[in-house]
């Protein structure tokens, strides 16, 4: 990068470095120099033989270069977060049959998600390879025609191919700075699963039991960004890929957050690694939670954050039980 002593530069300008008359003297005492150039300006100021000493005129500042703007230069449409609308559109086409025919997704209360302005979407998280994130992102992009950015564990970023695809489709590491910038400055919809990996990694026997909501970071970010939290209760993801056993030693050896044995693998063999069961998906958007605090504060009351976080978790949990009470069949809703 910098401080480059490049061969090219030497090649272009080497000849230009004029040997000065005092070069020999300088070499004789390499550590302390002799003055090699007369201060021309000072000479001009003081000297009577003004006309003999050519003073280089101060060069005018070069005009700003005329350049094409980024839109004409660029070849792709990948944004600063790595999302590409073209890739996303392609994925929507490929994914739509799965969304509408396989999972037969039904939304309730979609109108509670604002058509513009930032909001933090918060949902329960399930399925060995969570099927809820694509469903939510696809559904909102399809119905509301606005992008959704999904925050997730940075683990994805380390996985070749998958990490790049995840990024192009709107995923990004759940860093508070990323969330803040997206919500506050770019007024986007951001999806986050506060359960983290504790959600998808739970055993089938614990389905629809919400895990701890992290440390309430999502509430703090929403407060700082001045946006509402919109909770979403998701039914169906648990049964699309239930975990019947876990292999912690394999997970550790492979460097994975968890290594599930899923019912899908039992039923479908190797195909079960990627094949979801056709569980009926129902999503219920709950009332947005506004915090009524001043945005951009350095700190927010930790007790308030934990209270709000717990309240949101409770609300989603209650609604889930409610939806499960109404559900007659896992496959038909």
């Amino acid at each position, binding site marked *: 990068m*910098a401080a*480059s002593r490049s061969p090219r530069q030497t090649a272009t300008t080497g000849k230009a470095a004029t040997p000065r008359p005092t070069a020999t003297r300088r070499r004789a005492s*390499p550590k302390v120099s002799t003055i090699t150039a007369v201060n021309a300006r000072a000479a001009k100021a003081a000297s009577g033989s003004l006309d003999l000493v*050519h003073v280089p005129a101060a060069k005018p500042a070069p005009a700003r270069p005329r350049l094409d703007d980024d839109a004409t230069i*660029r070849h792709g449409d990948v944004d600063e*977060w790595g999302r590409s609308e073209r890739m996303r559109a392609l994925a929507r086409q490929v994914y739509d049959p799965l969304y509408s025919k396989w999972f037969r997704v039904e939304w309730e209360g979609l109108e509670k998600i604002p058509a513009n302005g930032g909001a933090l979407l918060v949902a329960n998280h399930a399925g060995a390879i969570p099927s809820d994130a694509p469903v939510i992102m696809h559904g909102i992009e399809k119905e509301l025609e606005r992008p959704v950015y999904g925050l997730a564990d940075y683990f994805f970023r380390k996985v*070749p191919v998958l990490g790049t695809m995840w990024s192009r489709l709107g995923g990004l590491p759940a860093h508070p700075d990323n969330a803040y910038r997206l919500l506050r400055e770019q007024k986007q919809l951001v999806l986050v699963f506060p359960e983290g990996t504790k959600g998808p990694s739970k055993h089938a026997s614990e389905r629809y039991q919400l895990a701890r909501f992290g440390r309430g970071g999502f509430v703090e970010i929403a407060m700082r960004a001045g946006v509402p939290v919109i909770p979403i209760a998701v039914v169906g993801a648990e049964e699309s890929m239930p975990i019947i056993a876990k292999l912690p030693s394999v997970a550790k050896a492979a460097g994975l957050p968890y290594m599930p044995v899923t019912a899908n693998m039992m039923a479908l063999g190797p195909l079960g690694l990627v094949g979801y069961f056709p569980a009926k998906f129902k999503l219920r958007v709950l009332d947005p939670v506004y915090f009524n605090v001043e945005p951009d504060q350095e700190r927010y009351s930790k007790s308030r954050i934990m209270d709000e976080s717990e309240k949101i978790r409770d609300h989603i949990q209650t609604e889930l039980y409610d939806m499960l009470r109404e559900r007659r069949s896992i496959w038909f809703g």
Partner: protein
Amino acid sequence: MPAPQLPGGPHQTGRRVLVTGLGTFWGGRIAQALEADPTVDVIIGLDTTEPTVELERTEYVRVDANYSILAKIVRATRVDTIIHTFLVVDPTQMSKRAMHEVNVIGTMNLFAAASAPDSTVRNVIVKSATAVYGCGPEDPTWFTEDTPPSRALRRPVERSLDQVEGYVRDFAEDNPHVVVSLLRFSNVIGSEIVTPLTRALELPLVPSMFGFDPRFQFVHEDDVVRSILFVLDHNLSGVYNVAGDGLLPWTEVASLCGKSTFPLPPYISDALLWPVKRLGIVDLPEEYLNLLRFGRGVDNRKLKDAGFEYDYTSAQSVKAFIEAVRLRKTIGNNTPSYSYERDVEQFFRHSPSVVREAPAYDRRRSDT
């Protein structure tokens, strides 16, 4: 930090600037730019090697790599401004040990000299790099000046720059009357500079990491020089990221250069790339391999808010680079190498036959 002006202000008497690393790309460029500035009276350049660019009135002083002689020079020349460009951020340039000498020991000696009790130094600008943020999967998309690195810095370059910044902070704290600014530059690209990334982009196939396509940020070499002069002119203190707007996926960077990528195995290390390096194909040290996995973006808004306007975005910088490459392919490296005017000027300046009045330079100095 307060930014007091000396009584009578350096601007009124003209700045006396010390540029470290005069023989490097940056030192030379900065000195050239300073020469065009009439408010700068004296420019003194330090380096271990001779400057490679044409300089009109900069005085070159040969020093050893770690500047042990520096205190003497600072005292003797009574400089008020130090522009510290001699920091190695490209690990392919020298060994780890040599880099430590230049970066850490050099900076230590520089600040030791500048903080001497009778020191006249009132402005210090240090040219660091965004490598101090490290590079890893848990990084945010944009680093602000206050974001700490996500994980402990392990690469020699990162660590040596981090130590350098530690000295800068200490110096700023101990010398509140000095305006200290620290500029962190993103990947520099442009028509002339050569870095591991530009070398990679000039290969027939651009190396990439299989399955990774991180986003890169670039800053044009002219913006680098302009930003340093801007900070100097505006007496800015503090830390500033310097980087062009926008992030570009590496495959897009390659495609802007009209190249395809050649994916390397994703878990390759620089040790495994050793044969490729020995063959002289490309030298990609570990920090660059990491960049090819995760990329890095820095928030450039702090300097913009201070009033700086970038000439180039990341994409425009890459375009300027590839256009310069194309031009070089056609006309070669030939710039006019002989100019009789220059020789005549040399004659006017240095020949004993030219009648000049008494040592103007010295008289000027005794005034200050």
